[in-house]
């Protein structure tokens, strides 16, 4: 079966004055419909870049895809030209970003912005508006307006019709994020990429937005890649998780396997650093050292310089083991230690 999204061995370099930074180093990920994948990791690990690559929103140069492919329903988006990409963005792939304030134009009414997106999506697929190909502009705008109201209602904005004429500043942060979700879903995408959608929001609003996201996945049969640095958000929302470190996925799999039985030393370290209910004061463990320089990354396993289990063989690229169905760990040392 073709996956909705399949990233295969993706390598990405970013050119800078100091040289080429190897920002992604063999990222592989498979997302099916109905799955919510959490992409977690710390600042600079490549999670946002992975998300942006899927909709090809990185400028090339400075970015350069050196190896690998990104298959969307079997088509490699890296081979498409800009015109073809434009028909995918918003239609097949929806995106939501962190800051709901900067992603809405303050000078236009919410309704105008939503209707624009609906009309643009309808140029590629007139069925979105429920009209035939020959419909006039007036009919299309009226249908787009109706769709905008329906989407706003669906994402939980009360009195949606009257709010179409409001400007973004008249909405709260949580409400703006709802508007952006409506905007991302208006073209009925199969894949939604949400890059830190709740980081700028308060916890209670965050919980509402995450619940909404789950509900939308169920209602529209989408696949989601949720990019976040918060493992709590992942535990609350996702079906699967991929843990990234310095441009590589170190561990991935169903949420229960990865959080219940974290195998990679980095995943374990990350979990030991989170203040949970059972951690006594002073007992949290930080992670010594710092993230490697990506212009001259360590050979082999990129986590090895900070890893307690590191041994000479870690200078080889780590082989990936499958611990349980779908639960993959890029650390042979852990695997050997368990069988010894």
């Amino acid at each position, binding site marked *: 079966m073709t996956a909705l999204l399949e990233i295969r061995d993706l390598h990405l370099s970013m050119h800078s004055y100091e040289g080429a930074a190897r920002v992604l180093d063999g990222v592989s990920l498979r997302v099916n419909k109905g799955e919510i994948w959490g992409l977690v990791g*710390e600042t600079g690990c490549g999670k946002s870049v992975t998300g942006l690559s899927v909709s090809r929103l990185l400028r090339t140069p400075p970015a350069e895809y050196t190896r690998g492919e990104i298959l969307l329903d079997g088509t490699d988006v890296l081979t498409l030209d800009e015109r073809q990409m434009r028909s995918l963005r918003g239609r097949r792939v929806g995106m939501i970003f962190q800051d709901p304030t900067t992603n809405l134009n303050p000078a236009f009414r919410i309704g105008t912005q939503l209707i624009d997106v609906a009309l643009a999506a309808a140029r590629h697929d007139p069925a979105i508006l429920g009209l035939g190909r020959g419909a006039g502009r007036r009919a299309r705008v009226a249908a787009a307006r109706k769709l905008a109201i329906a989407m706003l209602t669906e994402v939980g904005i009360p009195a949606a019709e009257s709010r179409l004429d409001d400007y973004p500043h008249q909405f709260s942060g949580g409400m703006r994020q709802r508007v952006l979700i409506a905007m991302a879903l208006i073209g009925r995408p199969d894949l939604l990429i949400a890059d830190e959608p709740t980081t700028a929001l308060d*916890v209670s609003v965050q919980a509402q937005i995450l619940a909404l996201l789950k509900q939308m996945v169920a209602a529209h049969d989408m696949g989601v890649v949720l990019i976040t640095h918060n493992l*709590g*958000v992942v*535990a609350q929302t996702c079906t699967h998780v991929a843990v990234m470190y310095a441009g590589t996925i170190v561990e991935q799999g169903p949420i229960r396997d990865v959080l219940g039985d974290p195998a990679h030393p980095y995943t374990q370290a990350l979990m030991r650093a989170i203040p949970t209910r059972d951690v006594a*004061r*002073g007992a949290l463990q930080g992670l010594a050292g710092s993230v490697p320089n990506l212009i001259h990354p360590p050979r082999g396993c990129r986590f090895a310089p900070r890893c307690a289990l590191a041994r000479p063989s870690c200078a080889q690229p780590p082989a990936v083991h499958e611990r349980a169905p779908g639960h993959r760990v890029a650390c042979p040392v852990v695997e050997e230690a368990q069988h010894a």
Partner: protein
Amino acid sequence: MLEIEGVSRLFPARRGMFGTTAGVRALHEVNLSVRQGESFGLVGESGSGKTTLTRQILRLDTPTSGRILFEGQDMATLSPAALRALRARVQIVFQDPYASLNPRMSVHDIVTEPMLIHRQTLGLDRRQRTDRAAELLELVGLGPQHLYRHPHEFSGGQRQRICIARALAPGPSLILLDEPTSALDVSVQAQVLNLLIDLQKRLGLTYFFISHDLGVIRYVCDRVALIYRGEIKEQGETQRVFDAPESDYARSLLAAMPEVRVPD
């Protein structure tokens, strides 16, 4: 040590170019008391009045009504000289270590600046200030080799350590920590939180810890108060508030908290 008694702060209505803005009741009858040597947590969402309250404690702003006592003294009645002496004892660490360090100053200048401002209280000469800066850097896990570097040479976690060293410089007894780790990654956050806990043990500091991250508050604080729209909704021992919240607000906040647990 710190008594906040019936403090309210109203920002009055204003008339401007685009019409009249409504007045805002940022704080309403806030009562809190922070004991010597404890970590007191203040939790609230954005716009709840956390920062306004901090500004009242630092006396950067004056409450509309109510009073704030630090070690029994009402801050509003102090002479400017007495207030300055008192400010050496109350210091603050801000949220964003990228914005709160002057990029053009060396770490030495950053850490010795409070000692210079409070030289009348502290009585340290130039040499002693430099020695103390080096000691403070060691205390926060950096070293004398970092004295003559500039902020851009440090990572986020290291910068926050510099901010902590600067806060410790005038020998405070109370430190206000305004979201000190929310700009940091979790692995770095853990180190900074442990540093704060360690410093508290060694120096007998009192912390007033402001955060919206309930996990962090639970890890660090002895007692906690929840603030919502300028009113304290609940306060008590941290464990009690987390295990058996009494107010509806506390219950809804705890229910929304994203805990890392394995789903069944």
